[in-house]
């Protein structure tokens, strides 16, 4: 009961931080700066959601990461103003439970990759150059000793010359550093689609 209460408290505090960012961002006119605030808000939200899930669940040691993936992707689509029917999210995830110290970096990585897919893959809200609707695919599975996460999209290609390990955007920097924190390996496939793959040990 006590731990539950703590997660509730943490979530409320994150909500306050999120409100503070909202209040500040309303006083900003510069569109790029507003976008940065929104990205920060989404990151906080992705952590708050984990605490909320823990607060709601009976097992405080494990997070249903599949439910989390659904939760966070819906939120991000909503947050970037993607109407239903434009970008389809295909989720292919086993029911996998993670502890909080794995779920936070992993959740932030998903947050960045899905945000990237929405904003860079589909800058025009999900209609790709052939006129067909956009698709973001998320796979999450595990074998005996590893987890495999893949986030891909069929939208605009990732720039060929961009090295994800030397990226200047905070989003990609977070992805590569958090992958390292998880002791995992991140790779990018940019042949027919844009696909980020992460594998890390259980």
């Amino acid at each position: 009961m006590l731990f539950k209460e703590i997660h509730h408290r943490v979530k409320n505090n994150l909500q306050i931080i999120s409100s503070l960012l909202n209040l500040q961002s309303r006083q900003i006119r510069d569109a790029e700066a507003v976008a940065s605030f929104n990205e920060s808000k989404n990151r906080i939200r992705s952590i708050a959601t984990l605490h909320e899930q823990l607060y709601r669940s009976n097992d405080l040691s494990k997070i249903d990461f599949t439910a989390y993936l659904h939760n966070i992707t819906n939120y991000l689509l909503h947050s970037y103003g993607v109407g239903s029917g434009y970008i389809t999210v295909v989720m292919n995830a086993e029911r996998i439970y993670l502890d909080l110290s794995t779920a936070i970096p992993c959740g932030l990585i998903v947050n960045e990759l899905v945000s990237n897919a929405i904003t860079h893959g589909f800058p025009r809200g999900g209609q790709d150059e052939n006129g067909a609707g956009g698709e973001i695919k998320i796979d999450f599975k595990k074998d005996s000793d590893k987890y495999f996460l893949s986030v891909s999209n069929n939208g605009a290609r990732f720039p060929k010359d961009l090295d994800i390990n030397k990226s200047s955007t905070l989003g990609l920097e977070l992805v590569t550093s958090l992958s390292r924190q998880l002791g995992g390996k991140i790779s990018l496939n940019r042949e027919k689609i844009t696909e980020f793959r992460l594998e890390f040990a259980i």
Partner: protein
Amino acid sequence: MEEIKVLIVEDEVIVAKDIGDTLLSLGYAVTGTATSAEGAIELSESTEPDIVLMDIMLEGELDGTEAAEVIRSRFNIPVIFLTAYSNAKTLQRAKTTNPYGYILKPYQETDLYTTIEIALHKHRTQRKLIEETENALAAIIGSTEVFLEEGSPGDDTEVLRRMDYIRNAALIIKDTIEKL
């Protein structure tokens, strides 16, 4: 169009200010911010909002569902719950106060807008239907009372005219009930 006045009930003042700014940007007016159930009841009376946005978890004697019950029954102001996930028991309690809407935090601006608009529409429609029913009932009661007090007017056409009047009033009530 007349400005719609909203009362915010939220015990975290920073979150309340954020909600207030969002409401202003959506074109609503904010009549005040209460941080407790007791304050919510007071401000509902003194500032006469059109609608109340109520957090369920509040510090103090009463919680949001209890405040909503008082505000609904005493002032007939519609209440929308704007609250973080709560357990099944709280949700059940929220339901018994007949809320006009339920928004989960963290909310999106569009949720706020659509829920408020639907709630206000529902409230206005209900109020109109209740008024119509009350008027029709008064007509029925009035006409039958005249009958009982004065007896039959002795003229069949007049009796039929009055009967027709009563039936029409009853039909209005039947119609209203079907609309509810």
